[in-house]
């Protein structure tokens, strides 16, 4: 679907280029009424649509696992999805398809609030700045402690979850207790290099059809 969207956008951009080029080479067209309409289309409507559609396509593509793992600094985090360790949260979620593999990083590392996506994108811009122009910290840490809301977004109400967490349900919903109090093994970057692997690469697993 994303591929169709971006292909349509490419066609649209080519058509827009043709319209804009026509006006740049023959601006006298605007002396007539028809020319004014062409100018309005070529210099206002089409660029606005191209801008909005381009932003949508790029925003969507920036949610993908490939996008996150394309930065060198994120490679060990990608590899941590492949370790043979059922207690490691990211690995067990990724390997068992408890999350959409194409959007694995974004699924857990966005905030499920009204402006959560935008907040994540703004932080992403900061990451891009640091990656290209700034200094990458030796140890990468979350901005804020992981809140249960992000886990409960998917798990709340699920039968297995409710049955297994019956006693702690209220404490989990009110954040009195953190999910990570018990499920405390996340990316475990320090062990990634030596840990046995379930698969060779993340890339190969992204191609699996649903």
């Amino acid at each position, binding site marked *: 679907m994303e591929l169709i969207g971006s292909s349509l956008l490419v066609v649209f951009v080519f058509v827009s*280029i043709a319209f804009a080029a026509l006006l740049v080479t023959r601006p006298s067209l605007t002396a007539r009424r028809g020319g004014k309409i062409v100018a309005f289309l070529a*210099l206002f409507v089409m660029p606005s649509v191209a*801008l909005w559609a381009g932003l949508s396509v790029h925003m969507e593509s920036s949610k993908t696992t490939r996008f996150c793992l394309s930065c060198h600094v994120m490679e060990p985090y990608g590899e941590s999805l492949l370790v043979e360790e059922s207690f490691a949260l990211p690995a067990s979620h990724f390997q068992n398809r408890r999350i959409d593999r194409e959007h694995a990083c974004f699924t857990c590392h966005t905030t499920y609030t009204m402006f959560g996506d935008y907040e994540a994108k703004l932080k992403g811009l900061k990451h891009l700045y640091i990656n290209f122009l700034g200094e990458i910290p030796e140890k990468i840490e979350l901005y804020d402690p992981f809140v249960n809301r992000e886990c409960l977004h998917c798990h709340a109400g699920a039968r297995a979850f409710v049955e297994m967490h019956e006693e702690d349900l209220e404490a989990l919903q009110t954040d009195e207790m953190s999910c990570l109090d018990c499920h405390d093994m996340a990316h475990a970057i320090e062990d990634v290099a030596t840990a046995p692997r379930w698969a060779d690469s993340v890339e190969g697993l992204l191609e699996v059809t649903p």
Partner: protein
Amino acid sequence: MKWILGETLETGLRRSGILVLVGLATELLSLTMLETPAGFMLFAIGGGAFLGLGVLLYLWTLVAKSETRRQD
């Protein structure tokens, strides 16, 4: 502001068209780099900015030139 808009409506429209063209070409280039941070930055800083400026210049040209005509 004449240095931006030019003497005539046609000059303003041509300049706006050039900005839009550069923006569209940059957007096209950025679409070949989807799912990479470089593509995103190219669109945000290059394509998006040029397209936005082109549209603004077009609107500004229309307003400025219609005002000039009214004064004449």
